[in-house]
C-alpha cells in the first residue's frame, strides 16, 4: 500500500547554514592538508611517533659529502683532505731504519731492487738518480746541488733549484692551494704533498656528478593558486549566504 509520503521536515534554516559553514571549513582545511601546503609540526610527529618521512619520503635526503662534513664539523675547512690523499708520503726519519749510515754507498746509477722498485723514478725522464736529491751519507735529509743538507719539510727549496718560476709563483701564492685566512694565508701542502716527487705528473681524478637537467615545467596549475581560488569561492558563498537577497 503506497501512501503518499509526507515531505521530510527540513531542519531549521540556521542549522542548515551552520552545517554548510562547518562542512566548507572542514573541506578546505582537509584540502590544505592533503595538498601538501600544510605541514604537521614536529610536535605532532613526535606525538604520533611517526616522522615526516611517513608522508614525505623524498624530503629527507641523504646529505652529500659536503653536507655530511658540515654535520660533523660545522665547517668546510678540511673537507677535501679525505678526498684527495697525498700522493706520496714518507715519514721523516724512517729511512735510517734500513739504511745504516756506516754503509758504503755505491753512487752508480743502476736498477734498484725491492723495496724501491715499486717507485719507478720517472722524474727527469732518466736524467736523475736517487742521489740527485737524496743525501748519500745521511738518508734522513735531502741535499741541494750546492751540498747543503735540508730536512724533508724544506723540499720546495730543492724543487726550486730547477723549477724556479714555479717556486717563485708558489712563494707569491700564485701556485698551489692556499688556505688559512686572507691576512695569514698558508700553503695547504708543500710540493711533495700534491706532486709525487718520483712521478710528478698529475694523475686523473674522479669527478663529482653533474647537475641535473632542468626539470620540465609542471602541467597542473599551482596548488596554492587552486587553494586560493577555493578560499575566494568560499568567502563569496559565505557572504552570499549571509547577505544575499532572498526571493
Amino acid at each position, binding site marked *: 500500500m503506497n501512501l503518499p509520503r509526507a515531505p521530510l521536515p527540513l531542519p531549521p534554516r540556521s542549522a542548515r547554514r551552520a552545517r554548510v559553514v562547518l562542512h566548507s571549513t572542514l573541506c578546505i582545511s582537509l584540502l590544505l592538508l592533503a595538498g601538501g601546503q600544510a605541514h604537521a609540526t614536529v610536535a605532532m610527529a613526535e606525538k604520533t611517533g611517526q616522522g615526516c618521512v611517513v608522508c614525505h619520503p623524498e624530503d629527507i635526503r641523504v646529505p*652529500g659529502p*659536503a653536507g655530511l662534513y658540515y654535520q660533523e664539523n660545522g665547517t668546510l675547512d678540511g673537507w677535501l683532505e679525505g678526498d684527495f690523499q697525498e700522493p706520496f708520503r714518507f715519514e721523516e726519519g724512517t729511512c735510517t731504519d734500513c739504511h745504516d749510515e756506516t754503509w758504503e754507498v755505491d753512487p752508480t746509477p743502476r736498477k734498484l731492487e725491492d723495496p724501491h722498485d715499486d717507485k719507478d723514478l720517472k722524474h727527469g725522464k732518466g736524467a736523475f738518480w736517487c742521489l740527485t736529491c737524496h743525501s748519500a751519507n745521511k738518508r734522513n735529509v735531502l741535499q741541494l746541488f750546492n751540498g747543503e743538507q735540508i730536512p724533508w719539510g724544506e723540499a720546495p727549496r730543492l724543487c726550486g733549484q730547477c723549477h724556479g718560476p714555479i717556486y717563485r709563483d708558489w712563494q707569491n701564492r700564485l701556485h698551489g*692551494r692556499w688556505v688559512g685566512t686572507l691576512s695569514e694565508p698558508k700553503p695547504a701542502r708543500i710540493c711533495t704533498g700534491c706532486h709525487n716527487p718520483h712521478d710528478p705528473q698529475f694523475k686523473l681524478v674522479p669527478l663529482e656528478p653533474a647537475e*641535473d637537467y632542468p626539470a620540465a615545467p609542471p602541467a597542473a596549475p599551482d596548488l596554492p593558486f587552486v587553494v586560493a581560488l577555493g578560499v575566494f569561492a568560499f568567502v563569496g558563498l559565505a557572504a552570499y549566504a549571509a547577505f544575499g537577497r532572498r526571493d
Partner: protein
Amino acid sequence: MPEPRQPRCAEPQPIELRPPQERVSRRDFLRRTGQGTAALAALTLLPKDLLHVPQIFSKEDFCLHHFVEMSPAEVEQRVAYLEKLYRERFHDDRITISTVPAPEGVLWAYALNIGKCVGCRRCVKACVGENNQSRDPMMEWIRVLEIEKGSMEIEGSHHYYEHEKVPDPAYYYMPVQCQQCENPPCVKVCPTHATWQEKDGIVVVDYNWCIGCRFCLAACPYFARRFNWTTPTYHAGGINPDMHYIGNRPRFKGTMEKCTFCIQRSRTGRYPACVESCPVGARKFGNLLDPESEIRKLIATKRVFRLKEELGTHPKFFYFID
C-alpha cells in the same frame, strides 16, 4: 509613407519594491553580519599547526624594508626573527645570520687558471654546501664548461659532461660563475633595486625584495644567475649555519640567487669555499686594491683575459694561463 519610428528601448516599467516585510530589517542585517563574521572567524580557530601560513603573510615580512634602507634597530630585529625562524625550520641552534658590511679599501677580485683546472667539480660541491643551495631542484652557481682543446667557443661547450676520471685529454675546463662585473647589466635592469653592488664590488640580492621578474637572468651575459622555480629543498641536517643576510641564507620560491664570492667568508677574512676546495689550486682570490695580493701579482705577471670583455661589463673575474 514612412512607418513611424519604433522606440529603441522598451517602455520603462515601474520598479516594484519588495514588500516591506521582505526587506532586510536592521535587526536582520546585524544578525547576518554577525553570522558571516563568525563563519570567517571560525577559520582562524583552526589549530595553527594545520594551516601552514606562508612566510610572506607574517607581519615581519609584510612590513619589511629594503636591506639597505633598514635602520640598525630594524636590521637587528629582522635578524633575530630570521634566526628564530631558521632554527626552528632546520632544527639547528648554531644558525646565525651575519650582516657584516663591506670593509673599507677592499675590492674583491677572482682569478682562475684554466691551464690547471681539471674539471673535477669539487668547487661546485663545496659551493653547494657552503651556500645552502637547493638539492631539489638542483641549484649550482658554478658551471664547469668542458671545451674542446684548440677552441674558445663557449657556445660549443657543455657542462653536463660525465667521465670516469678527469681531465679528458681532448678537452679543457673553464668554470663560469658570477663575474662580479664592475658595470653589472643585471643591476641596471632590476626594476625594484633588489640587486645592487656593494662597496667591496660584490653584487648581491635582497631575497625578500626580489619580485622574481627574471630580467637580470636575461641580462646576464655569463648565465650566472639562478632562479628558484620551485621551493628549494635542502640536505637534511646539512645546512651551513654560518649565514649572511645577503649571502647564503635559505632562499625561497620565486627569488633570484647568485654567487657572492662567499660573502659570509670573504668579509670575515677567509677564502671563498671554491678557492679552498680546489684540489689543484687553480682558483685565486684577493683584494684588487692591495698591491701585495695574489690578484695584483697575477695580473702583472701572467697572461690574463676576461670573459666577453667586449661587452664592457668589466668583470672582476680573471682567467689566466701560466
